[in-house]
Structures are given as structure tokens and as C-alpha cells.
């Protein structure tokens, strides 16, 4: 009986350790673009742009309990309504157009492609840092390109940080996503840039129904992201 309990305890400790170890994996650091990759004119490049699934809204962080989250949601509900109603995907499309434009300066052999399956459905790739976590190599033949450039925009709208029930900052203009390029022969990143832009509104933010300060800070976040992309490509 004692041995059984001991075994269960050990198993529990091992599982917990494995879960924590998996959660604590080193995040992929920045990979600066390798310019010599684009020197060969026959290297073809595909570009795919993935829109956020959600409409523009307020993204809440730090409201760590269920009731805290309920309070936080009610505090930001008017702002959510405004963002959903007034901010469309036009600015995100402009960011996408900029990526294509900047890459077009590096290579004329670039085209927009459509993925038959979402990236999340691709098989896993076990590689070190500097390699994509999904196996993109299978796309080389189906898309007919050597390099795939991906702009994934995950979240946009506003960001508000809470400490349990209490907001500890104003809602900030917010865009988050990833820009990366993968070599479809090796699955290595040619570029990897995390986009996470939060802009503090100037002055008073709580001005329903138009929330001009938060809306302006959203457009500022868009512009900052554009500048980062210009500098990175």
C-alpha cells in the first residue's frame, strides 16, 4: 500500500515537472533577416497574411480570478462596443501591404499565396531555436516557393492591465502578432519578429462613446508597427 502511494506521488511529481518544463520553454528570439538569401533571382518567395480571428476589442490581462475578469469586462464593455463598431481591418490590410512592398524591394520574385490548411494544422517540427515549430517543408511543392513569409496578426484594439479587480493602467492602443519567413528546404527561420505594440493614450481615456484618446493610440500602435516592419525588412 505504501509503495503504491509512493509510486502515485512520484508519478504526480514527474507529470507536474514535465508540464512546468514544457510551459517554460525558451521563446524564439528575434531573427534578423538574412539579406544574402534574396540575392539569387530564382529564389521564389510566397507571402501569406493571416488576419486576427476576433474583431478589435479590449484585451484584458492580470484579472486572474473569474469574478475579477467579470468586473474587468464590465469596466471595458463600452470601449469594446466602440472598438468593434469603428475599427475595421483596413489598417491591418495596410500593414500587410507594407510587408509585401518591403519584401518586393528585396526580391521581385514574390507572390501572394493561399494556404490550403491552416498553419496550426501543420505537423510539428522538432528543431532547435531558429527553426519553426511547425513543419513548413511540405508547402514547398504545393505552393511552388522556396521561402514563405508569414504575417500573423493575432490581436488588435486595446490592452488593459489589471491587478485582480483593480485596473493598474489605462487601456492602451494594441496590436500583437508575428512576422516571420521560413526557408522551406530546411524549415529554418530567415526572419522572426515578434510584434507587440502598446501605446499609452494621451490624457483622459474614459470618454465614451468615441474614446478619442484610445482610438488615436490604436492608430499610433499601427504606425509604430509599420516603422518596426520598415526597419526590420
Amino acid at each position, binding site marked *: 500500500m505504501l509503495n503504491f502511494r509512493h509510486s502515485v506521488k512520484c508519478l504526480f511529481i514527474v507529470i507536474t515537472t514535465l508540464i512546468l518544463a514544457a510551459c517554460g520553454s525558451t521563446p524564439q528570439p528575434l531573427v534578423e533577416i538574412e539579406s544574402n538569401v534574396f540575392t539569387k533571382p530564382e529564389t521564389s518567395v510566397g507571402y501569406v497574411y493571416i488576419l486576427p480571428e476576433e474583431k478589435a476589442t479590449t484585451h484584458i490581462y*492580470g484579472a486572474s480570478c473569474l469574478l475579477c475578469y467579470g*468586473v474587468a469586462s464590465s469596466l471595458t464593455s463600452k470601449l469594446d462596443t466602440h472598438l468593434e463598431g469603428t475599427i475595421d481591418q483596413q489598417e491591418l490590410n495596410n500593414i500587410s501591404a507594407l510587408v509585401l512592398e518591403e519584401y518586393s524591394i528585396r526580391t521581385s520574385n514574390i507572390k501572394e499565396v493561399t494556404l490550403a490548411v491552416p498553419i496550426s494544422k501543420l505537423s510539428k517540427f522538432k528543431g532547435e531555436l531558429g527553426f519553426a515549430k511547425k513543419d513548413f517543408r511540405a508547402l514547398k511543392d504545393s505552393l511552388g516557393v522556396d521561402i514563405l513569409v508569414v504575417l500573423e496578426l493575432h490581436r488588435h484594439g486595446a490592452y488593459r492591465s489589471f*491587478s*485582480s479587480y*483593480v485596473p*493598474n493602467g489605462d487601456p492602451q492602443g494594441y496590436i500583437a502578432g508575428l512576422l516571420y519567413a521560413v526557408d522551406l528546404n530546411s524549415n529554418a527561420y530567415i526572419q522572426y519578429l515578434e510584434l507587440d505594440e502598446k501605446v499609452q493614450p494621451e490624457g*483622459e481615456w*474614459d470618454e465614451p462613446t468615441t474614446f478619442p484618446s484610445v482610438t488615436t493610440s490604436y492608430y499610433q500602435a*499601427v*504606425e509604430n508597427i509599420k516603422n518596426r516592419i520598415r526597419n526590420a525588412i
Partner: protein
Amino acid sequence: MRFLFLSVFFLILGCNSTPNRDDYAKHVNTMGKAFHGENKLAFSFTQSEGIDLRGIHNRDDSTSSTPILYQGGAGLVGMFAQIGAHAAFINSSRNAKLAEEQERADSKISPLINLISGVSIFSLLDRTDSLFVKNNDVDNETLRLKPIFFSNEKMNQVILKLIAWLPDERGRTKNLRYQNMIQVFSPILSEDEHALFIDKDNDDVKRMMARQLNTAIHILQGDLTGRYTGLNEPQNTFTILRNNRSKVVRGSVVDNRCGFQVVQDLHSWYIAFPTETPVQQVTLSSPEQC
């Protein structure tokens, strides 16, 4: 449950508003599109004769998210007291952070602040001087003006924020009849211009500030007399250099004047920034020319 939810909601709402900033003004206009003929306008500065010049500081007052464990055994009232104390603590940290940032920014531009100390705000006025009334003549129809100048750490740019408001018919400031803000950006000065700018002789600084102040008053007159209503220009994103970084203004162009493009933004504020006009022409020309 609903009671608890609403109570927490109002408590947090009351305890944790954005810290007060005197360089901010919500647009108010209960008087209609054009409520003054040009000849009826009367202005008065709210401050003493000196020029209010401050450093541009970081506006992010967010504090770090400190984990807190509320004591559950204290009952409902105790719970609210704990949340209230937590909210008050965070609010005070946010105010302290802002004040500290402002102090630090001011100390970095102290040479410029010293340069203009003793300069009268009235000495910057050109022909708009006649619109200003003396303190004794200020009545409930006099527009109050509060100009605040800001400069960056490098002291190669000056930004004016002019806040204007009109009290109600009884002179009370609780329900304003009009309130707006006009911002005027100077160009970024080259190194040579900057050397002249912070020279012992404060003529260039005064000239730049005068140009900004008079442009702001001209724009304010335009707003008060309905010059900018009904233009319906499309909204666009404009980028201005501020503190050597791109600042976004989202709005519509309403005017082009003396090397400045004037945009009405999402707040209904007016933002004037230099067009492609050469810096030399914009900064150092006499204000009387425009």
C-alpha cells in the same frame, strides 16, 4: 451576487480614474457652430505673466501588477475595504510615477526654462494683443486661455498646447460652454539652429514661441467663428515628428496657414504642424508676416 458585482464595479470606477492632467481638455461646445462674431471675442490668460515651459515626459503611468491576496474572513464590508485600499494604493502609485517623470523631464530642459524666465507671455502676442482684456475687465463672456509650452530633452523642438474655455453664464467652471485644445508643433531644429536657439540671447526662442502662440490664437478664432465647420474633409492618419519619434494624428485637414497644416483630430482638437516649408523660413521669420 448582482449587488456585489455592481458594488465592486462602482468602487473601482470611483477609486481608479485616470490621474488629473492639466494639459488635457475634453472638447465642449454647447454654443453652436459659430457663437461669436470676430469683433466680440475677448481673451484672458489664466496664469501670471510668466511662460509655462515643461519637459516632454513619458505619459505611461501604468504600474507593475502586484499580486495581492484578499483576506476572505473579513466579510463583505472588509472585502470592499480591502479592494478600496488596493485601488487607492495603485492610484497613488500612478500619480507618483507621473509626477516623477515630469520632474525628471523638467530638469533636463532647465537651460531653456532659465532662458525664458522673466519673459512675459504678453510680449509674445502680435496683433491679437487687442483681443486680450485686463484682469479687471474679465467677465463671463471672456475666453480663458492657458498656454503650456513643452520641449524635448534635446531642446530642439517646442510644442504649444493652448487650452481655451468659456465658463457658463454665471461664471462657473462646472458646466463649461466651450472648451478645446490647440496644439502647435515647431519643426525639429538643425544643430546650427539649435545652437542659436539656446544662446544667451533669447530672441529666437521668443520668436518661435510667439509664432506658435499667435498661430494657436488664430486657429481658436477660426473655431469660435465657425470657419472650420462643414468642411467634411476625409479622415486620414498624419505623422508628426515629436521628440524625434513619429506621433500619429488622426483627423481631417481644416486649414493651411503660414507653413502650418491644421488638422482637426478625433478629440476635435486642432493640431498645427509644419508642412514641407524650410525650417529656416518657419522658425525665424517675423510673426507679423503671417
